[in-house]
Structure formats: structure tokens, C-alpha cells
């Protein structure tokens, strides 16, 4: 298949997954803030840090990080490529490039999602409408994903979509975990521990993983077991290992004879060997940085292998 079309598919899937995860992240953060003890000042700026948007936010709004402003930026900013609105628009514009090989209903769903994200934005920015807006986005992304799952031949097109979705998912899950190390909740006095639990619960919920955690780990919420679940569970589809294993399966189906991108087995090994006990704060943050670099390397290897065939008139053979 055309390299350009494959790349469009891959990016459409990444943007869709990113939009869903971002919507979940904002939703859960909002709920968490409602549970905070009176008097503590929640930091909305953490959300910006998580998606790497604090610099462009500061450029526009300065140091003020109040709820209304941060949310307007994250949900509706046209100019900022990481806003929810821009992410959905990017998914749609990538899908436009291959309408002829895409199930038509899926294209209509993506179009619907795009219009919903624009038309209902005002309601999404209100405190009462926010939850409904974000749920709407999550549900509509899942409709698209389900449509593709149910309707597409298991051929190149399908696997390029899977690659984008799973790599983005692994990346977004690490960002969600990082939200705890970045101290969403300021720890103060004896309440600190209690709110740590609250926070882990909210991370699990943002991944719809709370129930699954209970089923799989059969334990109360504890930092090390939550981390083991979110990093290493091969059964939970949104864990880092779960997403990377799915990525590996798609690569094997796509190219049974080719070797895997070199970095993938390395990153998988790193994840399976990590020790959740005592992993917190700076140490956790550093590990996550390292993993994210690994994801970026895997992306680079996929890009070189599939999306960037040489444009030179006469490429050297055998390269």
C-alpha cells in the first residue's frame, strides 16, 4: 500500500487514541478535584505538564493556571496542536486522505465526532456540561474503533491503524501514571496517604481499570500493586505491557519475516523487569521519561521502515 496512505492511517489512529485518553484524563482530574479537602488549592497546571503543553500555555496565558483558563486551552484552543479539539481535527484530516479504502460508516463517525467536538464545546466548558461532553467524545471514539475492528479486513491497512493506536496508548498510559509522580495532590499532614489512594484510584478509573484491577490483583489500592498492574499486566489492554504486546502482534502479522524494530523488545524487557516496590517520585518520573524515549525510538523505526521510502531518483539497492 502507498506509504503516504499507511502513514495517514497510523496517525489517524494515534490522534483518535490520544483524544480518548485526553478526554478521560480531564474527566477524572475534574472528579478528583471535587474530592479534595477544602482549602487545598488544586493544581490544574499538572494537566498541562502531562501532555507537554506548559510552554505554549505560558506563552499565551502567563503564570495564571486557573481551572477555566486551563480547560479552555486544553479543550478548545484552535492554535494549540495538543488541545482536544485540534487532536480530533487532526484525526479527521488524516482520515480524509484514505476515504476510498476506509469503511464509509467509520468516516461518517469520525465526521460526527469532529462536529460534536466543535458544536458542543460551549457545554464542555461549563462545569455542569463537562462530564457529558467528555463522555460523548470517549464514546464516539470507541464507536469508530469498534467499527474498524468489526469491518476491516485484517490486511496492511488494519495493522497500520493498530500500530498507531497501541503505541499511542502505551505512551498515554505512562503519562497518566506520571500524573501521580507529578503530585496532582499536594501532600499535607496525615491526610496525605489517604489522598494518595484517592489519586491512584482516579488514575485507574481514567483508564477504566478500577474494576479490572480488582479482578486481576484482588488487592486493596496500593501504590506498588497499582504500578505493577498498569505497567506489567499482560491481561489489561491499557497497561503499558498490554499495549506493547498488541503492537508486537500487529507487527508480526504485518511482516511475518521481518525482524522487529530493535527498540521494541528492549522496551518490553525494561517494562517486565521493573520493580514496582518503592517506585515513586523522581525515580518513577525518570523511568517514565526513559520509556517515552523508547516509544519515540520505536515510532522513528516504524517511520523509516514503512512511511519514508527514499525519494531520491536512484536509491542505492540493498539499503
Amino acid at each position, binding site marked *: *500500500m*502507498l*506509504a503516504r496512505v499507511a502513514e495517514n492511517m497510523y496517525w489517524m489512529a494515534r490522534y483518535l487514541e490520544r483524544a480518548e485518553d485526553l478526554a478521560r484524563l480531564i474527566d477524572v482530574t475534574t472528579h478528583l478535584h471535587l474530592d479534595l479537602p477544602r482549602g487545598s488549592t488544586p493544581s490544574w497546571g499538572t494537566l498541562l505538564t502531562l501532555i507537554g503543553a506548559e510552554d505554549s500555555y505560558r506563552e499565551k496565558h502567563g503564570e495564571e493556571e486557573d481551572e477555566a483558563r486551563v480547560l479552555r486551552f486544553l479543550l478548545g484552543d484552535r492554535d494549540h496542536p495538543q488541545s482536544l479539539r485540534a487532536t480530533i481535527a487532526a484525526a479527521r484530516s488524516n482520515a480524509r*486522505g484514505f476515504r476510498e479504502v476506509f469503511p464509509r460508516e467509520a468516516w*461518517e463517525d469520525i465526521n460526527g465526532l469532529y462536529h460534536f467536538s466543535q458544536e458542543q464545546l460551549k457545554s464542555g466548558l461549563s462545569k455542569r456540561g463537562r462530564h457529558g461532553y467528555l463522555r460523548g467524545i470517549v464514546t464516539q471514539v470507541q464507536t469508530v474503533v469498534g467499527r474498524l475492528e468489526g469491518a476491516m479486513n485484517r490486511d496492511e491497512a488494519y495493522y*497500520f491503524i493498530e500500530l498507531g493506536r497501541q503505541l499511542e496508548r502505551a505512551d498515554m498510559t505512562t503519562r497518566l501514571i506520571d500524573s501521580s509522580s507529578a503530585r496532582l495532590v499536594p501532600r499535607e499532614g496525615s491526610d496525605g496517604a489517604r489522598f494518595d489512594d484517592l489519586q491512584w484510584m482516579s488514575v485507574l478509573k481514567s483508564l477504566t481499570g478500577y474494576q479490572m484491577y480488582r479482578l486481576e490483583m484482588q488487592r486493596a489500592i496500593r501504590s506498588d500493586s497499582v504500578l505493577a498492574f498498569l505497567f506489567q499486566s499482560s491481561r489489561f489492554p491499557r497497561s503499558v505491557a498490554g499495549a506493547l504486546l498488541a503492537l508486537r502482534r500487529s507487527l508480526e502479522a504485518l511482516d511475518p519475516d521481518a525482524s522487529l524494530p530493535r527498540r521494541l523488545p528492549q522496551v518490553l524487557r525494561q517494562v517486565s523487569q521493573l520493580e514496582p516496590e518503592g517506585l515513586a517520585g523522581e525515580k518513577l518520573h525518570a523511568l517514565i521519561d526513559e520509556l517515552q524515549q523508547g516509544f519515540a525510538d520505536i515510532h522513528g523505526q516504524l517511520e523509516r521502515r514503512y512511511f519514508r*521510502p527514499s525519494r*531520491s*531518483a*536512484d536509491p542505492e539497492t540493498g539499503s
Partner: protein
Amino acid sequence: MTINWGSYAQPGLFDEWVTEKGRLRTGFGRLGKRFATYSMDALQDRSASLERAIKEQGVTFTVYSEAHGSIDRSWPLDLMPRILRRQEWLTIEAGLTQRVKALNCLIDDLYHDQRCIKDGVLPAFLLENSANFRPQCVGVNPPLGVWAHICGSDLVRHEDGQMYVLEDNLRVPSGVSYMLENRGVMKRTFPELFANFAIEPVDAYPSQLYDTLCALAPHRAQPEVVVLTPGVFNSAYFEHAYLAQQMGCELVEGRDLVVNSQDEVFMLTTRGRARVDVIYRRIDDAFLDPEAFNEDSLLGVPGLMRAWKAGKVALANAPGAGVADDKAVYCFVPDLIRYYLSEAPLLPNVPSYICARKDDRDYVLDHIDELVVKPVNESGGYGMLLGPQATPKDREAFRKKIQRNPRNYMAQPMLNLSTVPTFLGQAVEPRHVDLRPFILSGESVQVTTGGLTRVAMRKGSLVVNSSQGGGSKDTWVIDEGDR
């Protein structure tokens, strides 16, 4: 309430279905009576299901607006078909076939010996000032000697009942996908009519197109054919994607192709590069190859002209084919048919005045309020003056334009296009139509059965372009004898 053909007729119009006296024409009786059995409610029901089918099949066209950029709109299709009797159609088909053969002879001649000019059939000044003559194409021998593989000719019926050729589009004519989709939608909407009337099918086109393209391949048994589009923002992108899908070809953009130093063309795939043999290009000459034409073009493929000239890839239509869809050249097509084929033309041209000729020019300047004045190198109805409807100021401006650059203009009498019954929600009224059949030329010449009928939805309007509020109709060629 049902359709009453007796009160439908309107004086002064030539209607395709009904005579001026309100009688159904010969060959339209059975079908016309059948339509009159539907109540208005029933027609509204059918119309709703037709619109649903268009939406479900995702038939769209793109319009541009300042405020919203490009928007996809549902394709407008009218409930009532345009009908042609088979008897008449066979003549039209033969007329189009000879016309396109002559045009291909002309193009090949113009890029070689220019016999037609030496023999005085075509005036030399037409070529000297032609905007679409490409010096880069001189001496090239495309496969089978054919330049215009896909042609879309516009036909209109005047109030005298005669069918005339209005223009021939030899560059990148569009609309055939809508002809095919219209038929699919109509079959879903009126299944019983398709069961009871001998309506000739149209769906052979995509495979005929594919075969025509394959026959151009330099010499490989399994040629790789691709459709080259300017991209998703082009107004005909729907059609590009549709045809690629129907033929099972890749839909490529310029950036997906490279030409190597051996003048071979490749597309860039996830498995490396793959050789391309035939390109059905939907990009204008000027943007095709920045090495040969417009060097700023980002849509084209550097080196494509080299590859084509070397015979390593076939292009359809061939670069330079547009030299023959000049509206001044148009005026000579009947003469060219006699000259190249030694045949009498079967389809007449609309009488035309070439402003480059002094006598014609004087006539046009004196009668500009009766004429339609057209720039010779535009398509899609742009830059025209409709004399009878224009303001005195506009007419004066056009007189000046003609005097400044006479070669650039031609004029024709204002035709009163024929009408077809058209469903308007509450009533059926006559609306003006034209017809665009598509003609494929390769090893043989094939004409679509019927074509795309375009209809001006506003009462009295003659503007059929979909970008300007025009709609479309399914075109039925039927064999109903004298009934």
C-alpha cells in the same frame, strides 16, 4: 393529486417528454402514463428514499466558501429521469464516435506534420495563439496514436428539436462517477420501473475505462494502473476516489511518485517502490511536471514528461490534448470530420462566430445583446457573457475585451435548452437540461449509454453547473418502439 401532462406543457419550450399541445411524445407514452399513476404523496415518498440512498452511498461533491473552506455536500439528483429513445441515441453515439476520432487525428496531426493547416482546413492563426498547444509534445508518438482517451462532450437540444454539440472536454472531464451513482440510486428508488421497461445499463464504464488504460501500457503483462489526483481538496476528489476504487487501482498524489534516471516511474509503498505503467491523471497539464511546465507546481511529479516521451509510462489523457478543446478549434470540427474521415458529420455544431475573423467579429460586436460570448480556453462556464441577460455596462466591457484580444473569444446564439419534467416537492415542472456523454478511445471507441444529464433547478435558468445550483438526472436510453 397526480401529474396532469395536459396542463404541464408550457408554450415556447421544447420539452423532452411532452409536446406543446400537452401530449406525451412518441416513445414516452407508456412511461409517462406510468408516472401519472403516482400520487404526489407517493412521489414525495420516493424522493425521500432517493435522498436517503444518496446519503447512505455517500455521494458528495465539494463546494468552496470563503467562510468554511471546502465542504462536502450531498449530490443533487432529481427524481424524474431524462429519457432518450434508443433510435435517436444510436445516431448520437455514432456522431460522437466520429467526432472524437477526428479530434484525435487533429491532435496527432498538430504535433506532427500539421497537414490540416497546410491544406487550409484549420487557419494557422488558431495554432499560433493557442494557449493549450504544448511545444513539449511535438513529435511524440503516444501508444495507439491516441491522445484524448477520455472525452466528455456537452450536448444540448435546441427548440427546433435538434441535438447540438456545445463543446468537447478533452483535458480532465469529470462527472462520470455521478452518472454511475445516479443509476445505482434510481434502481433502489424505482425498482419496478427497471423491471418493466427496457432501460439500457450504464455500469460497464469502469471496466471499459480500465481496459482502455491497460491497453496503453508499454509492455508489461500485468500493468500497474494508477489514478493521479491533485488531492483531497480538489472539487472532483470524490470522483477520483470512486474511479480508483471501482477499477481496483491505487489513488496516488504527485508526492507518491518518483521518476528515476532511466525515466521509469515508481510509486512509494510500505514495501519500497513499485513500477507504474499507466497513469490516469486528473491534474491539468500545467501542474503535471515542474521540470517541464509550471515549476512551482507542488502537485506534479518531476520528470513525468521525460518518462512519457521515452514511452516508459502512458498518460491519459496525453499532455497537450487540450489543444483540441479550444472553443475556436471547436468551430472547425465538422470540417475536420470531413477532412480526416471523409465522412459527413452526424451531429451538428451550434452555429458559432470566431472573433479572430473580421466578419464574424463585426457581427458579434453588433449583435452582442443576442449572443453568448465565451473565452476560448475556459471550461465550467467561467468568464462568459450572456448577452440577452447582461447589463449594458457588462456588454460594453465585453466589446472592449473582444477588440483587445479577439483570438480569445467566440460567440454563439443563446440556445433555449430543452426541458424535462422535474420534481419540485409539490409539483412537477419543466426545467432546462444538457447532457454529457463520455467517450473512451483506445483500441476502439466506446460511448457511455446516455451520460450525465445536468438540470438547472431554478425556473427559467439555463445554468446547469452543480457549483451554481444545478442538479442532475439519471439518463435512460430505452427502446419503446412507437408506444
